[in-house]
């Protein structure tokens, strides 16, 4: 077995999760198909399959959008109704694309896709410019905290690759971005890193290859932007958050050394930890020090964000799944009331009379709706008063909790600021919350 440290400094082999926002009309499926095709992810038999389908449907060229055209149920309806995940690799980076439909009635799918993305490609049809749906997609990317936004002005081939049209769309978008405070400020404290690119997904201009239709554009191609975009958790320093998933106590073991073994297993949601660090276990507030950090058979001196590890502490502390280990001095107060933006995901509307389950990190609590401050119109961003919440609605809501949760604001931590709402009768996931 290997004992090497895999995340050494010269490892140029990270992973980026991104999403695409747009409708079929914007060429979203074509864009994804083109990325897969030009990075040689599509293999011969798949290509044969889609070119046969293209011919059957009477098309002249191979329709790359068929690559992302998934289930029979959807093909029959001719629309994409769910989030699909696609994969490609460039040799320097592995990519996971979350592909979600962009229509208004699919807000919940966009929120789902956005929840794991670190970059969003927002597609604009060059013939149509900034539309209501562009505002909607941008607002949702903002709400779900995707730090990097690439505004892709597509179908440039249909406007004769006209630079003036591209410039006008960029200016329109920036004006709108300023209006809702989308763009990152100079201190990099808040907001999103926004970039623009002209392209034709159909022809392949500026995706993987530059081609020569737009010599006036000197910026990076889409793939270059993707290759250079920071991976999640690499830009800001974050407090150490370690929700306990599972406690390992191999008492039945024959090995006497393991009799007192008590390992707290989980994934570091943010920050770093090292052997010897003083820690506090929440919600009880017991303190101890890190005795050892294990990953498989390896003993680590330190570990950081996104690593699944086992923590051993100096003292015997009664800790179970749902507790959170933090660094002493960086503790977040356990709270029994939270205020959040919630996207409702279920066809059954939210009922203010009912009790729901809130799952936050590895912890659950029963929850009651306190009040609904307002609902956000995702097209106009207007705040509207409301007493109920239907599928695809987004509202600012307060919850009263039966059990304390150790939360951070979503803006400061996308893991410990997020929760889902579960309907106990169906066990369905019915809401997605982002703590204010």
């Amino acid at each position: 077995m290997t004992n090497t440290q895999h995340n050494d400094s010269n490892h140029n082999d990270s992973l980026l999760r991104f999403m695409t926002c747009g409708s079929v009309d914007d060429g979203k499926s074509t864009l994804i198909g083109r990325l897969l095709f030009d990075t040689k992810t599509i293999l011969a038999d798949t290509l044969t399959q889609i070119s046969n389908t293209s011919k059957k449907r009477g098309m002249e060229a191979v329709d790359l959008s068929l690559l992302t055209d998934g289930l029979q149920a959807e093909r029959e309806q001719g629309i994409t109704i769910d989030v699909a995940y696609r994969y490609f690799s460039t040799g320097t980076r592995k990519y996971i694309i979350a592909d979600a439909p962009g229509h208004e009635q699919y807000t919940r799918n966009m929120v789902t896709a956005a929840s794991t993305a670190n970059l969003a490609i927002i597609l604009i049809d060059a013939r149509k410019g900034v539309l209501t749906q562009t505002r909607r997609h941008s607002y949702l990317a903002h709400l779900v905290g995707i730090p990097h936004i690439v505004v892709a002005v597509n179908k440039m081939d249909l406007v004769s690759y006209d630079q003036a049209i591209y410039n006008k769309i960029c200016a329109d978008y920036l004006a709108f971005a300023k209006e809702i405070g989308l763009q990152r400020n100079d201190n990099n404290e808040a907001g999103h890193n926004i970039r623009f690119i002209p392209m034709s997904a159909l022809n392949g201009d500026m995706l993987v290859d530059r081609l020569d239709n737009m010599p006036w554009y000197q910026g990076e191609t889409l793939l270059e932007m993707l290759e250079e975009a920071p991976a999640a958790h690499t830009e800001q320093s974050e407090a150490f958050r370690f929700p306990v998933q599972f406690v390992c106590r191999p008492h039945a073991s024959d090995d006497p050394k393991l009799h007192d073994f008590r390992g707290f297993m989980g994934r570091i949601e943010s920050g770093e930890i090292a052997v010897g660090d003083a820690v506090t276990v929440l919600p009880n507030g017991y303190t101890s020090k890190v005795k050892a950090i294990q990953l498989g058979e390896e003993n680590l001196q330190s570990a950081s964000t996104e690593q699944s590890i086992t923590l051993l502490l100096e003292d015997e502390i009664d800790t179970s799944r749902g507790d959170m280990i933090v660094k002493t001095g960086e503790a977040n107060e356990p709270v029994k009331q939270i205020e959040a933006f919630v996207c409702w995901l279920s066809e059954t509307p939210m009922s203010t009379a009912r009790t729901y389950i809130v799952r936050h990190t590895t912890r659950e609590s029963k929850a009651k709706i306190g009040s609904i401050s307002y609902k956000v119109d995702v097209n106009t961003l207007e705040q509207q008063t409301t007493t109920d919440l239907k599928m695809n609605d987004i509202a600012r809501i307060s919850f009263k909790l039966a059990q304390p949760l150790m939360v951070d604001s979503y803006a400061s931590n996308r893991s410990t600021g997020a929760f889902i709402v579960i309907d106990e009768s169906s066990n369905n996931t019915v809401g997605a919350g982002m703590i204010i």
Partner: protein
Amino acid sequence: MTSIKQPKPSKPLSHLDWLESEAIYILREVAGQCSNPVLLFSGGKDSLCILRLAEKAFRPGRFPFPLMHIDTGHNYQEVIDFRDQRAAELGERLIVRSVEDSMQRGTVVLKTPDEPRNKHQSVTLLEAIEEFGFDCCIGGARRDEEKARAKERIMSFRDEFGQWDPKNQRPELWSLYNARSHKGENIRAFPISNWTEMDVWQYIERENLGLPSIYFAHQRDVVMRGGAIVPVNVPLVSGGVINPPKVGEEVINMQVRFRTVGDITCTAPVISDAGNVAKIVLETATTTITERGATRLDDQTSDASMEQRKKEGYF
């Protein structure tokens, strides 16, 4: 709050470390949320990766679930031997339930004696779930394998009949997986959903994992049938041979390896001289055919055949 020493922003994990960490996290969520899970283990490369991930997730403890194989009775001897050997090495409990037992009970009825039995595994699996009261089955399916899997959840919900309804799946946000189920219902958990065939081979190489010998280049009697290489006269674990050549077919002895391992009647090998994992990684990087495209004879029946089988309770 007292003075905080701000940690430096972390370096990103390598893609394999990230995938490994995600899979460990998913396995631990299953252990934390489900009361009676089981890990489906066939002896194939994907499930061998999951065993390695389970070691990293739960050692020095025992696995919080047994291993289970649904045996079609048409498996390669080498794979069955490897399955038993690996379970013994790990000291974990292995349950085997057989499609042939379902046939004897009359719950599986074959149209023809030598038809592929992969799809009948669903029946035996559901019977085993009921027998042991499992509330979650961990499997090695990957989203890149097949179109119907691209939208599969990490925690996929199945109703009392084991059915997968693509229109009625739970939204999955962040890494807040919801594996809750009522009695009789079932969750299928897929820890390596986000892995590609290449990732699997790279992980096998990095972790130096052992594999059944038929994954590596070897000489084998085959015939060419409908554009695929079909292994013939394969000895069965239970004695006898399966897949005789049809009249007029020429038996050729070729150097081949398997990219995927399943029921003998529907798994085809590829021509290869890759005798070790490093060479397989190279071949995988340069292949022009998808894993299932050339090697799974059962998926080609129709464009949507996987989706159909999943609706019926298949993995």
